[in-house]
């Protein structure tokens, strides 16, 4: 996998990565393809898997609030 592909995966959200991961596995399961192609898919699948796990590991609830016509970060000010 080249660097740009790795960067692309690194930028994915959990939904994006897990949706593509599902698609990759389904594609691998659905048809037999040349080994080289299958290996490339497998490698991408593993990178996506890693990305998903990292996102689950680091997940932190993000809270924003409506302010005017925009969204701004929300900090709990209740005592």
């Amino acid at each position, binding site marked *: 996998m080249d660097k740009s592909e790795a960067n692309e995966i690194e930028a994915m959200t*959990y*939904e994006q990565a*897990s949706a593509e*991961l*599902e698609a*990759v*596995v389904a594609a*691998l*399961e659905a048809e*037999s393809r040349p*080994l080289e192609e*299958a290996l490339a898919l*497998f490698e991408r*699948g*593993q990178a996506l*898997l890693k990305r*998903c*796990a990292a*996102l*689950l590991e680091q*997940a*932190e*609830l*993000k*809270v*924003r*609030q*409506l302010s005017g*016509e*925009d*969204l701004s970060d*929300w900090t*709990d*000010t*209740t005592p």
Partner: protein
Amino acid sequence: MEPWSLFDVAPRWTVTDLTRYLRHLLESDDSLQGLWVQGEVSNLSRPSSGHVYFTLKDAGAQLRCVMWRSDAARLRFLPQDGMGVEAHGRISVYEAGGQYQLYVDALRPLGEGALYQEFLRLKSLLEAEGLFDAERKRPLPERPRRIGIVTSPTGAALRDMLNTLRRRNPLVEVVLAPTPVQGEEAPPALVEALERLNRLAAPDVILLARGGGSIEDLWAFNDERVVRAVAASAAPVVSGVGHETDFTLVDFAADLRAPTPTAAAELATPLTLQDFWADLSAIQGRLQTRMSALFERQRVRLENAADRLRFFSPLRRLQTERQRLDEAARRLAAAQAHRLQLAAARLGGLANRLQALSPLGVLERGYALVTRRRDGRLVTSRAQATVGEALAVRVRDGTFAARVSEEE
């Protein structure tokens, strides 16, 4: 009436009979059974028996009231002296005390009845419009990414919901639309919050929530404007207003009603972090199984190829050639042996014929060969045999010696 006439007849009633009769009179009057009466609470007492005793009064009269423990246990508020209430019950007589009184089975703060009537009126109106129809309810997304929250920014309800979301699925993003949730300003503020949240944040689901409170506290969630805004929300709405026993009109209009704010946050996140980990582990298993199968198939293919390669290899052809050679050699040897046999047979025949032609063959027929001992020459003429000459006579089965004895 003359004074003595009072003693003319025996008394017709005993006190008990009379009291019982009055009790019967009151109890058989339907308008006194299951009535609502309004007044101010006084002389309230609640002894250890658990029953509640009080007097209802207004400017002109007083009414003794008793509420049995089982009914009092259902009270949603604590009645106090001076409080205006509406009491529901039946009129009867406490015979031992000679008092008629109201046996209360339900009690509500004054004004709540009017609120409740308004609640019912609005409910049937909106119901008739179809706002509460089951077909209008939308399913909640299984994997919400953005959850909108409409509630007070300072309430415990918000903290409960955020904690629940954080614990269950911290992957979601929360957009808060802060708004007052009680008082005059609450209904228009709630309507605006819902509208702006949908327009600016387009959440996958909205939690509309408020912690517990009195029926007046929750009243904004019975406001027609708020109910209509909930029904009109682009995103499905989960209501979590008050406690489990509180029902507001917003609950009927919402796509899903949760008993509490915490429960609303739970319902909005059907899948938790745990589920995501399980999914991930399952898909990892599939990926590995698939790759193992792929490698296995490649291995088999390679083996087949190797087999075919061996089939066409020069070594194999060499072996084939060698085999053919061996076969040829074997066949050659066999042919040779056959030929030899033929030759031998022919030779045997020749030998027999030779045998027949041999002079020795004559011996078989009784002839003899005579040779001279001295030089081994065959004696074929008279001249060769002088007297005394040593001869060898060969007959069929051997040779014996002889000597020429005399001339003839």
